[in-house]
Protein backbone atom coordinates (compact mmCIF):
# COMPACT_ATOMS: atom_id res chain seq x y z
CA UNK A 1 0.00 0.00 0.00
CA UNK A 2 2.76 2.34 1.05
CA UNK A 3 4.72 1.51 -2.11
CA UNK A 4 1.64 2.14 -4.21
CA UNK A 5 1.11 5.47 -2.49
CA UNK A 6 4.59 6.62 -3.44
CA UNK A 7 4.68 4.93 -6.83
CA UNK A 8 1.08 4.90 -8.01
CA UNK A 9 1.93 3.17 -11.29
CA UNK A 10 4.14 0.44 -9.88
CA UNK A 11 1.30 -1.74 -8.69
CA UNK A 12 -0.35 -1.56 -12.07
CA UNK A 13 2.92 -2.44 -13.75
CA UNK A 14 3.54 -5.43 -11.54
CA UNK A 15 0.01 -6.58 -12.03
CA UNK A 16 0.35 -6.17 -15.78
CA UNK A 17 3.55 -8.23 -15.79
CA UNK A 18 1.85 -10.98 -13.86
CA UNK A 19 -1.24 -11.13 -15.98
CA UNK A 20 0.20 -10.94 -19.45
CA UNK A 21 -1.98 -12.88 -21.81
CA UNK A 22 -0.32 -15.27 -24.23
CA UNK A 23 -0.68 -12.72 -26.98
CA UNK A 24 0.75 -9.93 -24.84
CA UNK A 25 3.66 -12.09 -23.78
CA UNK A 26 4.47 -13.12 -27.34
CA UNK A 27 4.23 -9.55 -28.59
CA UNK A 28 6.46 -8.42 -25.74
CA UNK A 29 9.08 -11.02 -26.66
CA UNK A 30 8.82 -9.99 -30.29
CA UNK A 31 9.09 -6.29 -29.54
CA UNK A 32 12.02 -6.69 -27.15
CA UNK A 33 13.83 -8.95 -29.61
CA UNK A 34 13.37 -6.38 -32.39
CA UNK A 35 15.11 -3.84 -30.18
CA UNK A 36 18.28 -5.95 -30.54
CA UNK A 37 18.34 -5.05 -34.24
CA UNK A 38 17.83 -1.38 -33.51
CA UNK A 39 20.51 -1.13 -30.83
CA UNK A 40 23.05 -3.63 -32.17
CA UNK A 41 23.21 -2.43 -35.75
CA UNK A 42 25.88 0.04 -36.75
CA UNK A 43 24.26 3.45 -37.30
CA UNK A 44 26.59 4.15 -40.22
CA UNK A 45 26.26 0.91 -42.17
CA UNK A 46 23.22 -0.86 -40.74
CA UNK A 47 25.25 -4.06 -40.30
CA UNK A 48 24.10 -6.06 -37.28
CA UNK A 49 26.37 -7.52 -34.63
CA UNK A 50 26.56 -11.28 -34.38
CA UNK A 51 26.02 -11.08 -30.63
CA UNK A 52 26.16 -8.73 -27.67
CA UNK A 53 29.61 -10.05 -26.73
CA UNK A 54 32.07 -7.13 -26.73
CA UNK A 55 34.25 -7.23 -29.83
CA UNK A 56 31.64 -9.08 -31.84
CA UNK A 57 31.81 -8.62 -35.60
CA UNK A 58 28.68 -8.14 -37.64
CA UNK A 59 27.09 -11.23 -39.13
CA UNK A 60 25.48 -11.12 -42.54
CA UNK A 61 22.83 -13.63 -41.45
CA UNK A 62 21.94 -11.53 -38.40
CA UNK A 63 21.77 -8.51 -40.72
CA UNK A 64 19.29 -10.40 -42.90
CA UNK A 65 17.14 -11.15 -39.87
CA UNK A 66 17.46 -7.50 -38.95
CA UNK A 67 15.91 -6.41 -42.25
CA UNK A 68 12.96 -8.72 -41.66
CA UNK A 69 12.62 -7.73 -38.00
CA UNK A 70 12.66 -4.00 -38.76
CA UNK A 71 9.94 -4.45 -41.37
CA UNK A 72 7.83 -6.35 -38.83
CA UNK A 73 8.55 -3.75 -36.14
CA UNK A 74 7.30 -1.03 -38.46
CA UNK A 75 4.19 -3.02 -39.32
CA UNK A 76 3.41 -3.47 -35.63
CA UNK A 77 3.91 0.24 -34.99
CA UNK A 78 6.86 -0.26 -32.65
CA UNK A 79 9.15 1.55 -35.06
CA UNK A 80 8.18 4.57 -37.09
CA UNK A 81 8.01 4.19 -40.86
CA UNK A 82 10.91 6.62 -41.24
CA UNK A 83 13.12 4.82 -38.72
CA UNK A 84 12.58 1.38 -40.22
CA UNK A 85 12.77 2.64 -43.78
CA UNK A 86 16.03 4.50 -43.28
CA UNK A 87 17.77 1.70 -41.39
CA UNK A 88 16.75 -0.88 -43.99
CA UNK A 89 17.74 1.41 -46.87
CA UNK A 90 21.12 2.14 -45.30
CA UNK A 91 21.75 -1.56 -44.75
CA UNK A 92 20.88 -2.40 -48.35
CA UNK A 93 23.09 0.41 -49.66
CA UNK A 94 25.95 -0.95 -47.58
CA UNK A 95 25.28 -4.46 -48.86
CA UNK A 96 25.23 -3.33 -52.47
CA UNK A 97 28.13 -0.92 -52.41
CA UNK A 98 30.20 -1.33 -49.27
CA UNK A 99 30.08 -4.88 -47.92
CA UNK A 100 32.82 -7.19 -49.14
CA UNK A 101 31.55 -10.06 -51.26
CA UNK A 102 32.64 -12.61 -53.83
CA UNK A 103 30.35 -12.98 -56.82
CA UNK A 104 27.52 -11.62 -54.70
CA UNK A 105 28.17 -13.97 -51.76
CA UNK A 106 28.82 -11.99 -48.62
CA UNK A 107 31.50 -12.88 -46.16
CA UNK A 108 30.06 -14.45 -43.05
CA UNK A 109 31.55 -11.85 -40.69
CA UNK A 110 32.11 -8.22 -41.56
CA UNK A 111 33.52 -5.21 -39.81
CA UNK A 112 30.37 -3.39 -38.69
CA UNK A 113 31.93 0.00 -39.43
CA UNK A 114 33.44 -0.68 -42.85
CA UNK A 115 31.80 -3.83 -44.22
CA UNK A 116 35.22 -5.39 -44.77
CA UNK A 117 35.72 -9.13 -44.27
CA UNK A 118 36.99 -9.99 -40.78
CA UNK A 119 38.13 -13.05 -38.86
CA UNK A 120 39.28 -14.67 -42.10
CA UNK A 121 35.68 -15.67 -42.66
CA UNK A 122 34.32 -17.39 -45.74
CA UNK A 123 32.03 -16.02 -48.41
CA UNK A 124 29.10 -17.99 -47.06
CA UNK A 125 26.26 -19.43 -49.13
CA UNK A 126 23.73 -20.00 -46.35
CA UNK A 127 24.40 -16.72 -44.58
CA UNK A 128 24.05 -14.87 -47.88
CA UNK A 129 20.77 -16.70 -48.51
CA UNK A 130 19.43 -15.63 -45.11
CA UNK A 131 20.44 -12.06 -45.84
CA UNK A 132 18.78 -12.15 -49.27
CA UNK A 133 15.62 -13.65 -47.77
CA UNK A 134 15.45 -10.80 -45.23
CA UNK A 135 16.14 -8.24 -47.94
CA UNK A 136 13.46 -9.60 -50.29
CA UNK A 137 10.96 -9.68 -47.45
CA UNK A 138 11.76 -6.04 -46.64
CA UNK A 139 11.29 -5.34 -50.36
CA UNK A 140 7.79 -6.79 -50.14
CA UNK A 141 6.98 -4.71 -47.05
CA UNK A 142 8.25 -1.54 -48.72
CA UNK A 143 7.02 -2.25 -52.21
CA UNK A 144 7.55 0.43 -54.81
CA UNK A 145 10.37 2.07 -52.87
CA UNK A 146 14.14 1.93 -53.41
CA UNK A 147 14.19 -0.87 -50.80
CA UNK A 148 12.48 -3.19 -53.27
CA UNK A 149 14.84 -2.19 -56.09
CA UNK A 150 18.02 -2.53 -54.05
CA UNK A 151 16.96 -5.90 -52.62
CA UNK A 152 16.39 -7.21 -56.12
CA UNK A 153 19.76 -5.85 -57.30
CA UNK A 154 21.55 -7.58 -54.44
CA UNK A 155 19.73 -10.83 -55.20
CA UNK A 156 20.37 -10.57 -58.94
CA UNK A 157 24.09 -10.10 -58.33
CA UNK A 158 24.55 -13.47 -56.59
CA UNK A 159 26.14 -16.04 -58.89
CA UNK A 160 24.56 -19.18 -57.43
CA UNK A 161 25.96 -21.37 -60.20
CA UNK A 162 29.49 -20.44 -59.24
CA UNK A 163 28.90 -21.72 -55.67
CA UNK A 164 28.19 -25.18 -57.10
CA UNK A 165 31.89 -25.46 -57.87
CA UNK A 166 31.02 -27.71 -60.82
CA UNK A 167 29.19 -30.14 -58.56
CA UNK A 168 25.55 -31.02 -57.98
CA UNK A 169 25.49 -29.55 -54.49
CA UNK A 170 25.90 -26.02 -53.24
CA UNK A 171 29.22 -25.43 -51.53
CA UNK A 172 29.14 -24.00 -48.02
CA UNK A 173 31.63 -21.27 -48.77
CA UNK A 174 34.73 -19.89 -50.42
CA UNK A 175 37.87 -18.24 -49.07
CA UNK A 176 40.27 -16.06 -51.05
CA UNK A 177 43.35 -17.98 -49.92
CA UNK A 178 42.10 -21.53 -50.23
CA UNK A 179 39.15 -21.40 -52.63
CA UNK A 180 36.02 -23.46 -52.08
CA UNK A 181 35.53 -25.09 -48.67
CA UNK A 182 35.47 -28.88 -48.71
CA UNK A 183 31.91 -28.87 -47.31
CA UNK A 184 28.67 -28.99 -49.27
CA UNK A 185 24.99 -28.67 -48.39
CA UNK A 186 24.35 -32.33 -48.94
CA UNK A 187 21.46 -33.24 -46.65
CA UNK A 188 18.28 -31.90 -45.12
CA UNK A 189 18.82 -28.82 -42.96
CA UNK A 190 18.32 -25.08 -43.26
CA UNK A 191 19.58 -25.52 -46.84
CA UNK A 192 16.03 -25.30 -48.27
CA UNK A 193 16.01 -21.50 -48.21
CA UNK A 194 19.37 -21.52 -50.00
CA UNK A 195 18.15 -23.98 -52.63
CA UNK A 196 14.90 -22.06 -53.14
CA UNK A 197 16.68 -18.77 -53.77
CA UNK A 198 19.33 -20.40 -55.97
CA UNK A 199 16.78 -22.20 -58.16
CA UNK A 200 14.44 -19.20 -58.27
CA UNK A 201 17.18 -16.71 -59.17
CA UNK A 202 16.22 -14.63 -62.21
CA UNK A 203 19.87 -14.06 -63.20
CA UNK A 204 22.07 -17.01 -62.16
CA UNK A 205 19.76 -19.93 -61.38
CA UNK A 206 21.00 -23.41 -60.64
CA UNK A 207 19.19 -26.27 -62.39
CA UNK A 208 15.94 -27.31 -60.62
CA UNK A 209 17.11 -30.93 -60.84
CA UNK A 210 19.62 -30.15 -58.08
CA UNK A 211 16.72 -29.94 -55.63
CA UNK A 212 16.76 -33.73 -55.69
CA UNK A 213 20.48 -34.09 -55.16
CA UNK A 214 20.62 -33.58 -51.41
CA UNK A 215 19.82 -36.43 -49.05
CA UNK A 216 16.67 -36.72 -47.03
CA UNK A 217 17.59 -39.13 -44.26
CA UNK A 218 14.60 -40.44 -42.38
CA UNK A 219 14.28 -42.06 -39.00
CA UNK A 220 11.43 -42.84 -36.68
CA UNK A 221 11.28 -41.19 -33.30
CA UNK A 222 8.41 -40.49 -30.96
CA UNK A 223 6.08 -42.44 -33.24
CA UNK A 224 6.74 -40.35 -36.32
CA UNK A 225 9.06 -40.65 -39.29
CA UNK A 226 11.21 -37.57 -39.48
CA UNK A 227 13.44 -36.29 -42.22
CA UNK A 228 16.21 -35.13 -39.95
CA UNK A 229 19.23 -32.91 -40.00
CA UNK A 230 22.49 -34.44 -38.84
CA UNK A 231 22.71 -32.32 -35.70
CA UNK A 232 19.03 -32.67 -34.81
CA UNK A 233 19.11 -28.97 -33.86
CA UNK A 234 15.72 -27.27 -33.88
CA UNK A 235 16.96 -24.29 -35.88
CA UNK A 236 17.59 -26.52 -38.89
CA UNK A 237 13.84 -27.25 -38.98
CA UNK A 238 12.96 -23.58 -38.54
CA UNK A 239 15.14 -21.28 -40.64
CA UNK A 240 13.75 -22.05 -44.09
CA UNK A 241 10.22 -22.15 -42.70
CA UNK A 242 10.52 -18.75 -41.10
CA UNK A 243 10.31 -17.42 -44.66
CA UNK A 244 8.71 -20.16 -46.75
CA UNK A 245 5.23 -21.42 -46.01
CA UNK A 246 5.64 -25.16 -46.53
CA UNK A 247 2.17 -26.07 -45.30
CA UNK A 248 0.76 -26.65 -48.76
CA UNK A 249 3.96 -27.77 -50.42
CA UNK A 250 4.95 -31.35 -50.77
CA UNK A 251 8.24 -32.72 -51.88
CA UNK A 252 8.15 -36.31 -53.06
CA UNK A 253 5.59 -37.08 -50.39
CA UNK A 254 7.27 -35.05 -47.67
CA UNK A 255 5.52 -32.13 -46.05
CA UNK A 256 8.26 -30.16 -44.37
CA UNK A 257 5.86 -28.23 -42.16
CA UNK A 258 4.55 -31.48 -40.74
CA UNK A 259 8.12 -32.72 -40.55
CA UNK A 260 9.20 -29.72 -38.46
CA UNK A 261 6.18 -30.22 -36.24
CA UNK A 262 7.25 -33.80 -35.64
CA UNK A 263 10.86 -32.76 -35.10
CA UNK A 264 9.76 -30.15 -32.54
CA UNK A 265 7.65 -32.71 -30.72
CA UNK A 266 10.56 -35.14 -30.88
CA UNK A 267 12.83 -32.49 -29.39
CA UNK A 268 10.39 -32.00 -26.55
CA UNK A 269 9.98 -35.74 -26.05
CA UNK A 270 13.75 -36.19 -25.99
CA UNK A 271 13.95 -33.62 -23.20
CA UNK A 272 11.18 -35.35 -21.26
CA UNK A 273 12.95 -38.71 -21.63
CA UNK A 274 16.21 -37.26 -20.37
CA UNK A 275 14.70 -35.10 -17.64
CA UNK A 276 15.78 -37.46 -14.87
CA UNK A 277 19.39 -36.95 -15.85
CA UNK A 278 19.30 -33.26 -16.72
CA UNK A 279 17.70 -30.77 -14.38
CA UNK A 280 16.87 -28.24 -17.10
CA UNK A 281 14.77 -30.61 -19.17
CA UNK A 282 11.06 -31.09 -18.75
CA UNK A 283 7.76 -31.13 -20.58
CA UNK A 284 7.73 -27.35 -20.60
CA UNK A 285 11.47 -26.87 -20.66
CA UNK A 286 12.75 -27.97 -24.02
CA UNK A 287 14.53 -26.51 -27.03
CA UNK A 288 17.72 -28.30 -27.97
CA UNK A 289 19.24 -26.26 -30.71
CA UNK A 290 22.51 -24.59 -31.62
CA UNK A 291 23.25 -22.18 -28.81
CA UNK A 292 25.71 -21.05 -26.21
CA UNK A 293 26.39 -23.49 -23.42
CA UNK A 294 28.69 -23.91 -20.43
CA UNK A 295 31.42 -25.19 -22.77
CA UNK A 296 30.91 -22.66 -25.55
CA UNK A 297 28.68 -22.55 -28.60
CA UNK A 298 27.47 -25.98 -29.67
CA UNK A 299 25.08 -27.49 -32.17
CA UNK A 300 22.88 -29.03 -29.50
CA UNK A 301 20.11 -31.24 -30.76
CA UNK A 302 17.84 -34.17 -30.13
CA UNK A 303 17.00 -37.44 -31.79
CA UNK A 304 16.79 -38.22 -34.58
CA UNK A 305 20.25 -37.01 -35.43
CA UNK A 306 23.53 -36.51 -33.64
CA UNK A 307 21.70 -35.39 -30.47
CA UNK A 308 24.57 -33.59 -28.78
CA UNK A 309 23.25 -32.35 -25.46
CA UNK A 310 24.46 -31.51 -21.97
CA UNK A 311 21.39 -30.11 -20.25
CA UNK A 312 21.49 -26.74 -21.99
CA UNK A 313 18.18 -25.43 -23.27
CA UNK A 314 17.72 -22.44 -25.55
CA UNK A 315 14.35 -20.71 -25.12
CA UNK A 316 14.50 -19.51 -28.70
CA UNK A 317 14.42 -23.16 -29.80
CA UNK A 318 10.98 -23.90 -28.43
CA UNK A 319 9.71 -20.35 -29.03
CA UNK A 320 10.59 -20.44 -32.73
CA UNK A 321 8.66 -23.70 -33.13
CA UNK A 322 5.45 -21.90 -32.20
CA UNK A 323 3.99 -22.28 -35.69
CA UNK A 324 4.54 -26.04 -35.52
CA UNK A 325 3.66 -26.72 -31.90
CA UNK A 326 1.65 -23.74 -30.61
CA UNK A 327 0.52 -25.28 -27.35
CA UNK A 328 3.81 -26.88 -26.38
CA UNK A 329 5.80 -23.81 -27.39
CA UNK A 330 3.54 -21.43 -25.49
CA UNK A 331 3.78 -23.58 -22.40
CA UNK A 332 7.56 -23.53 -22.67
CA UNK A 333 7.69 -19.79 -23.24
CA UNK A 334 5.46 -19.15 -20.26
CA UNK A 335 7.49 -21.58 -18.14
CA UNK A 336 10.78 -19.86 -19.00
CA UNK A 337 9.34 -16.40 -18.55
CA UNK A 338 7.51 -17.04 -15.32
CA UNK A 339 10.18 -19.13 -13.60
CA UNK A 340 13.45 -17.67 -14.79
CA UNK A 341 12.61 -14.16 -15.89
CA UNK A 342 15.28 -12.55 -13.72
CA UNK A 343 18.13 -14.61 -15.08
CA UNK A 344 16.86 -15.37 -18.55
CA UNK A 345 14.97 -12.33 -19.76
CA UNK A 346 16.46 -8.94 -20.50
CA UNK A 347 16.20 -5.87 -22.64
CA UNK A 348 16.29 -7.83 -25.90
CA UNK A 349 13.94 -10.60 -24.83
CA UNK A 350 15.15 -14.08 -23.94
CA UNK A 351 18.88 -14.46 -23.45
CA UNK A 352 20.37 -17.27 -25.43
CA UNK A 353 20.28 -20.32 -23.16
CA UNK A 354 20.66 -21.79 -19.70
CA UNK A 355 21.67 -24.96 -17.92
CA UNK A 356 20.20 -25.54 -14.48
CA UNK A 357 22.37 -28.56 -13.66
CA UNK A 358 25.50 -26.49 -14.10
CA UNK A 359 23.87 -23.31 -12.78
CA UNK A 360 24.90 -21.61 -15.98
CA UNK A 361 23.02 -18.74 -17.57
CA UNK A 362 23.94 -17.11 -20.85
CA UNK A 363 24.46 -13.40 -20.48
CA UNK A 364 24.29 -12.76 -24.18
CA UNK A 365 21.88 -12.37 -27.02
CA UNK A 366 22.65 -13.72 -30.49
CA UNK A 367 21.27 -11.88 -33.49
CA UNK A 368 20.08 -14.90 -35.43
CA UNK A 369 18.45 -16.40 -32.35
CA UNK A 370 16.51 -13.22 -31.57
CA UNK A 371 15.64 -12.93 -35.26
CA UNK A 372 14.10 -16.35 -35.72
CA UNK A 373 11.77 -15.72 -32.77
CA UNK A 374 10.57 -12.42 -34.25
CA UNK A 375 9.76 -14.00 -37.60
CA UNK A 376 8.08 -17.11 -36.27
CA UNK A 377 5.90 -15.21 -33.83
CA UNK A 378 4.81 -12.97 -36.69
CA UNK A 379 3.93 -16.03 -38.75
CA UNK A 380 2.03 -17.44 -35.80
CA UNK A 381 -0.12 -14.35 -35.42
CA UNK A 382 -0.63 -13.18 -38.97
CA UNK A 383 1.50 -15.24 -41.36
CA UNK A 384 3.20 -11.87 -41.70
CA UNK A 385 6.38 -13.29 -43.21
CA UNK A 386 4.92 -16.22 -45.13
CA UNK A 387 2.27 -14.24 -47.02
CA UNK A 388 4.53 -11.57 -48.54
CA UNK A 389 7.46 -13.94 -49.02
CA UNK A 390 5.42 -16.50 -50.92
CA UNK A 391 4.40 -13.77 -53.40
CA UNK A 392 8.01 -13.22 -54.48
CA UNK A 393 8.36 -14.31 -58.13
CA UNK A 394 11.60 -16.20 -57.40
CA UNK A 395 9.85 -18.34 -54.78
CA UNK A 396 6.96 -19.02 -57.13
CA UNK A 397 9.47 -19.98 -59.81
CA UNK A 398 11.20 -22.40 -57.44
CA UNK A 399 7.87 -24.01 -56.45
CA UNK A 400 6.92 -24.48 -60.11
CA UNK A 401 10.37 -25.65 -61.20
CA UNK A 402 10.59 -28.28 -58.44
CA UNK A 403 6.91 -29.25 -58.79
CA UNK A 404 6.40 -28.77 -55.07
CA UNK A 405 2.67 -28.22 -55.36
CA UNK A 406 2.11 -30.86 -57.96
CA UNK A 407 0.17 -33.24 -55.75
CA UNK A 408 -2.99 -31.90 -54.13
CA UNK A 409 -3.34 -32.39 -50.35
CA UNK A 410 -6.24 -34.81 -50.86
CA UNK A 411 -3.81 -37.29 -52.37
CA UNK A 412 -2.84 -38.41 -48.91
CA UNK A 413 -0.10 -35.97 -48.08
CA UNK A 414 -0.30 -34.39 -44.70
CA UNK A 415 -1.19 -30.75 -44.95
CA UNK A 416 -1.88 -29.29 -41.56
CA UNK A 417 -4.43 -26.64 -41.03
CA UNK A 418 -2.95 -23.28 -40.21
CA UNK A 419 -2.23 -22.84 -36.55
CA UNK A 420 -4.81 -20.93 -34.62
CA UNK A 421 -3.21 -17.93 -32.99
CA UNK A 422 -4.02 -17.36 -29.39
CA UNK A 423 -6.00 -14.21 -28.93
Amino acid at each position, binding site marked *: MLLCAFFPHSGILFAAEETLSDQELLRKIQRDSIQYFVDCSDPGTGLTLD*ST*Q*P*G*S*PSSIAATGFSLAALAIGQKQGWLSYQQAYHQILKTLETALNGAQHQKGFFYH*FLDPKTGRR*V*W*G*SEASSIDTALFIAGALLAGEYFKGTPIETLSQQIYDRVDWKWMLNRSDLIC*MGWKPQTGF*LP*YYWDSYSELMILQALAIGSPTHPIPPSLWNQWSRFEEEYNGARIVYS*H*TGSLFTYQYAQAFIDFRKLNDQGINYFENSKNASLANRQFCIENSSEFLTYGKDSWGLT*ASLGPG*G*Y*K*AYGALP*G*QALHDGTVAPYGSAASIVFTPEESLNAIRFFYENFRDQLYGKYGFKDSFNLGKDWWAQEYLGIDQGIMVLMIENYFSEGVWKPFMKIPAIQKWIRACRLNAVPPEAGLSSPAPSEPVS
Partner: protein
Amino acid sequence: MVLLIISTTLIFALHFGIWGYALKEFSDESVRNALKMTSRLNDYEIARYQPAGEVTLPKLALLRETELFSSRQREILQGILSETQKRTIFLGIPLLFFIGWGSIFISHKIAGPLYHFNRIFKELKAKNLTARVRLRKYDEGKKIAETFNEAVLELDRSVAKMKKAAREAGEGVKLPNALTEELSQFKTTQN
Protein backbone atom coordinates in the same frame (compact mmCIF):
# COMPACT_ATOMS: atom_id res chain seq x y z
CA MET B 1 54.73 31.32 -34.50
CA VAL B 2 51.21 30.46 -35.58
CA LEU B 3 52.62 28.23 -38.29
CA LEU B 4 54.82 26.48 -35.75
CA ILE B 5 51.92 25.90 -33.36
CA ILE B 6 49.60 24.58 -36.07
CA SER B 7 52.24 22.33 -37.62
CA THR B 8 53.29 20.94 -34.24
CA THR B 9 49.68 20.31 -33.26
CA LEU B 10 48.98 18.49 -36.50
CA ILE B 11 52.12 16.38 -36.25
CA PHE B 12 51.32 15.46 -32.64
CA ALA B 13 47.69 14.70 -33.55
CA LEU B 14 48.86 12.42 -36.32
CA HIS B 15 51.41 10.70 -34.12
CA PHE B 16 49.21 10.20 -31.08
CA GLY B 17 46.17 9.38 -33.23
CA ILE B 18 48.01 6.49 -34.84
CA TRP B 19 49.53 5.27 -31.62
CA GLY B 20 46.27 5.69 -29.74
CA TYR B 21 44.48 3.60 -32.34
CA ALA B 22 47.16 0.91 -32.24
CA LEU B 23 47.23 0.81 -28.44
CA LYS B 24 43.43 0.62 -28.27
CA GLU B 25 43.44 -2.36 -30.62
CA PHE B 26 45.96 -4.12 -28.41
CA SER B 27 44.61 -3.05 -25.03
CA ASP B 28 44.06 -5.78 -22.44
CA GLU B 29 40.33 -5.51 -22.93
CA SER B 30 40.52 -5.75 -26.72
CA VAL B 31 42.84 -8.74 -26.62
CA ARG B 32 40.62 -10.43 -24.02
CA ASN B 33 37.57 -9.83 -26.22
CA ALA B 34 39.44 -11.06 -29.28
CA LEU B 35 40.42 -14.23 -27.43
CA LYS B 36 36.84 -14.85 -26.39
CA MET B 37 35.66 -14.20 -29.91
CA THR B 38 38.30 -16.58 -31.25
CA SER B 39 36.91 -19.32 -29.12
CA ARG B 40 33.35 -18.46 -30.17
CA LEU B 41 34.13 -18.43 -33.88
CA ASN B 42 35.97 -21.70 -33.60
CA ASP B 43 32.88 -23.12 -31.93
CA TYR B 44 30.76 -21.80 -34.79
CA GLU B 45 33.01 -23.52 -37.32
CA ILE B 46 32.88 -26.80 -35.45
CA ALA B 47 29.10 -26.58 -35.07
CA ARG B 48 28.64 -25.98 -38.78
CA TYR B 49 31.38 -27.93 -40.49
CA GLN B 50 32.41 -30.78 -38.26
CA PRO B 51 30.95 -34.05 -39.53
CA ALA B 52 28.61 -35.89 -37.21
CA GLY B 53 30.32 -37.94 -34.57
CA GLU B 54 33.76 -36.45 -35.12
CA VAL B 55 35.37 -35.25 -31.91
CA THR B 56 37.87 -32.44 -31.84
CA LEU B 57 40.92 -33.14 -29.75
CA PRO B 58 41.57 -30.32 -27.28
CA LYS B 59 45.04 -29.72 -28.70
CA LEU B 60 43.67 -29.53 -32.22
CA ALA B 61 41.04 -27.07 -31.07
CA LEU B 62 43.78 -24.99 -29.47
CA LEU B 63 45.75 -25.03 -32.72
CA ARG B 64 42.68 -23.92 -34.66
CA GLU B 65 42.05 -21.15 -32.19
CA THR B 66 45.67 -20.03 -32.39
CA GLU B 67 45.44 -19.92 -36.14
CA LEU B 68 42.19 -17.97 -36.00
CA PHE B 69 43.57 -15.58 -33.41
CA SER B 70 46.75 -14.92 -35.36
CA SER B 71 44.74 -14.35 -38.52
CA ARG B 72 42.67 -11.83 -36.57
CA GLN B 73 45.84 -10.14 -35.30
CA ARG B 74 47.05 -9.84 -38.89
CA GLU B 75 43.75 -8.23 -39.83
CA ILE B 76 44.11 -5.81 -36.94
CA LEU B 77 47.65 -4.92 -38.04
CA GLN B 78 46.44 -4.45 -41.58
CA GLY B 79 43.69 -2.26 -40.20
CA ILE B 80 46.22 -0.18 -38.26
CA LEU B 81 48.40 0.21 -41.35
CA SER B 82 45.52 1.21 -43.55
CA GLU B 83 44.27 3.59 -40.84
CA THR B 84 47.79 5.06 -40.61
CA GLN B 85 47.83 5.48 -44.35
CA LYS B 86 44.43 7.12 -44.28
CA ARG B 87 45.39 9.48 -41.47
CA THR B 88 48.69 10.31 -43.14
CA ILE B 89 46.85 11.20 -46.29
CA PHE B 90 44.07 13.14 -44.60
CA LEU B 91 46.33 14.97 -42.14
CA GLY B 92 49.76 14.71 -43.77
CA ILE B 93 48.87 16.17 -47.13
CA PRO B 94 47.16 19.27 -45.71
CA LEU B 95 50.11 19.59 -43.33
CA LEU B 96 52.55 19.49 -46.24
CA PHE B 97 50.54 22.10 -48.09
CA PHE B 98 50.38 24.19 -44.96
CA ILE B 99 54.13 23.94 -44.36
CA GLY B 100 54.82 24.65 -48.03
CA TRP B 101 52.58 27.69 -48.04
CA GLY B 102 54.07 28.79 -44.72
CA SER B 103 57.59 28.43 -46.04
CA ILE B 104 56.80 30.56 -49.07
CA PHE B 105 55.10 33.14 -46.89
CA ILE B 106 58.00 33.24 -44.44
CA SER B 107 60.64 33.32 -47.17
CA HIS B 108 58.82 36.24 -48.79
CA LYS B 109 58.75 38.07 -45.50
CA ILE B 110 62.49 37.68 -45.14
CA ALA B 111 63.65 37.61 -48.75
CA GLY B 112 61.74 40.82 -49.58
CA PRO B 113 63.51 42.97 -46.95
CA LEU B 114 66.90 41.43 -47.81
CA TYR B 115 66.37 42.39 -51.43
CA HIS B 116 65.45 45.91 -50.41
CA PHE B 117 68.48 46.26 -48.14
CA ASN B 118 70.72 45.00 -50.92
CA ARG B 119 69.28 47.55 -53.33
CA ILE B 120 69.67 50.40 -50.83
CA PHE B 121 73.26 49.38 -50.07
CA LYS B 122 73.99 49.65 -53.78
CA GLU B 123 72.40 53.11 -53.85
CA LEU B 124 74.53 54.17 -50.89
CA LYS B 125 77.56 52.78 -52.61
CA ALA B 126 76.61 55.05 -55.53
CA LYS B 127 76.54 57.91 -52.96
CA ASN B 128 72.77 58.35 -53.15
CA LEU B 129 71.79 59.39 -49.65
CA THR B 130 68.16 59.94 -50.61
CA ALA B 131 67.52 56.20 -50.81
CA ARG B 132 65.42 54.67 -48.01
CA VAL B 133 64.41 51.14 -47.16
CA ARG B 134 60.65 50.76 -47.60
CA LEU B 135 59.14 47.46 -46.38
CA ARG B 136 55.66 45.90 -46.79
CA LYS B 137 53.19 45.61 -43.95
CA TYR B 138 54.02 41.97 -42.99
CA ASP B 139 57.76 42.05 -43.82
CA GLU B 140 60.30 41.04 -41.22
CA GLY B 141 63.09 43.53 -40.17
CA LYS B 142 60.96 46.65 -39.95
CA LYS B 143 62.77 47.83 -36.82
CA ILE B 144 66.18 47.45 -38.43
CA ALA B 145 64.93 49.25 -41.53
CA GLU B 146 63.67 52.08 -39.37
CA THR B 147 67.01 52.44 -37.55
CA PHE B 148 68.85 52.09 -40.82
CA ASN B 149 66.71 54.79 -42.45
CA GLU B 150 67.30 57.07 -39.46
CA ALA B 151 71.06 56.55 -39.78
CA VAL B 152 70.97 57.26 -43.52
CA LEU B 153 68.80 60.32 -42.86
CA GLU B 154 71.37 61.65 -40.40
CA LEU B 155 74.13 61.04 -42.89
CA ASP B 156 72.02 62.66 -45.60
CA ARG B 157 71.47 65.77 -43.50
CA SER B 158 75.09 65.90 -42.43
CA VAL B 159 76.39 65.69 -45.99
CA ALA B 160 73.77 68.20 -47.12
CA LYS B 161 75.01 70.57 -44.44
CA MET B 162 78.59 70.03 -45.52
CA LYS B 163 77.63 70.69 -49.12
CA LYS B 164 75.84 73.87 -48.06
CA ALA B 165 78.77 75.02 -45.93
CA ALA B 166 81.13 74.43 -48.81
CA ARG B 167 78.91 76.44 -51.13
CA GLU B 168 78.52 79.30 -48.68
CA ALA B 169 82.22 79.50 -47.94
CA GLY B 170 82.39 80.81 -51.52
CA GLU B 171 85.27 82.61 -52.79
CA GLY B 172 86.54 83.85 -49.40
CA VAL B 173 87.84 80.47 -48.37
CA LYS B 174 89.77 78.31 -50.72
CA LEU B 175 88.54 74.74 -50.23
CA PRO B 176 90.51 71.82 -51.57
CA ASN B 177 89.18 70.72 -54.94
CA ALA B 178 89.13 67.13 -53.85
CA LEU B 179 86.72 67.94 -51.01
CA THR B 180 84.37 69.98 -53.20
CA GLU B 181 84.44 67.32 -55.85
CA GLU B 182 83.79 64.56 -53.37
CA LEU B 183 80.87 66.40 -51.77
CA SER B 184 79.29 67.15 -55.13
CA GLN B 185 79.14 63.44 -55.86
CA PHE B 186 76.73 62.86 -52.97
CA LYS B 187 73.07 63.00 -53.79
CA THR B 188 71.17 64.41 -50.84
CA THR B 189 67.56 65.35 -50.19
CA GLN B 190 68.58 68.98 -49.64
CA ASN B 191 71.29 70.43 -51.84
